[in-house]
């Protein structure tokens, strides 16, 4: 596929991510830093770190909620960490899902936490898929571009 067509596809993907509120101004700031030329591949690096962090944290929270007696303080710490990570990359819907989570671990509601975790996981899967598509398109553009 021609570079121009790939770029159109990438721009459409990014526009959709903004339009649906999946990512916020923080993500734009990261892009502007990359476009400033001081950090090539920077957005992909941050997105990859976020995906790795979130995968691990969600698994840790699920393991905690699987225990007969749930340590809600540890759930709090993990959700707090995921909120920070999602804020850093600008994954707005994941961040909002983490904020929604808070009321349930504060109320020590295991059922509530399980529902909140399902929402976090769903939002994370959505944004992870988009980030992965974004990175694939960027790699294809890079490969097709004249050296």
């Amino acid at each position, binding site marked *: 596929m021609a570079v121009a067509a790939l770029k159109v596809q990438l721009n459409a993907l990014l526009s959709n991510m903004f339009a649906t509120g999946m990512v916020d101004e*923080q993500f734009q*700031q990261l892009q502007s830093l990359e476009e*400033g030329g*001081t950090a090539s591949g920077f957005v992909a690096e941050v997105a990859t770190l976020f995906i790795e962090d979130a995968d691990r944290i969600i698994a840790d929270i699920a393991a905690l909620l699987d225990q007969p007696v749930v340590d809600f303080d540890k759930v709090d710490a993990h959700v707090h960490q995921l909120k920070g*990570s999602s*804020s850093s990359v*600008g994954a707005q819907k994941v*961040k909002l899902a983490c904020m929604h989570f808070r009321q349930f671990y504060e109320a020590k509601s295991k059922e509530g936490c399980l529902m909140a975790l399902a929402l976090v996981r769903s939002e994370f899967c959505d944004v992870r898929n988009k980030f992965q598509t974004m990175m694939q398109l960027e790699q294809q553009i890079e490969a097709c571009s004249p050296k």
Partner: protein
Amino acid sequence: MDRRRITVLLVEDEEIHRVVARAVLRAAGVEADEAENGAEAVRRVRERVGGGGAGAYDLILTDKQMPVMDGHEATRQIRAMGVTTPIVAVSSDSLPSDVQAFIAAGADDFTPKVTIHPIHRINRVLLLMCVPNAHDSRSDRLLMHAHAPIPCMQPLTKEKLGHILSKFGLA
């Protein structure tokens, strides 16, 4: 005129936050030393001020929740050494009590981590560091900047910062 080199210590345990902060600082033409917890930060500061090395940092940016030693304790220990370097707390715990706890520990300023504001605020602090006599009334200046409304703007690029530095004869 000598070009003033700004040295920053970034104290943060989470790699994703370090990567973002590093990029923001690089965009402003600043290279940062990094510490992954408070104890490492205290050691780095002690080495610089006591080892006859490069001297104190111009700015310290620190997280709160970290393993080994948190940001409050690190700030207290750095101040106990007599170091007057501006310390800016960058934390996602941003209730008034969280801010006050950091100020009480010896920090000059606080900025929440969960918004885009840290990028703007860090740029503001870096800009402040470039202004001659910035260390006069340091705390007042930093706090004034902390409470100022934040306009919608792009982070400083290296080029823009270079232009500002040249205006002050620093580049």
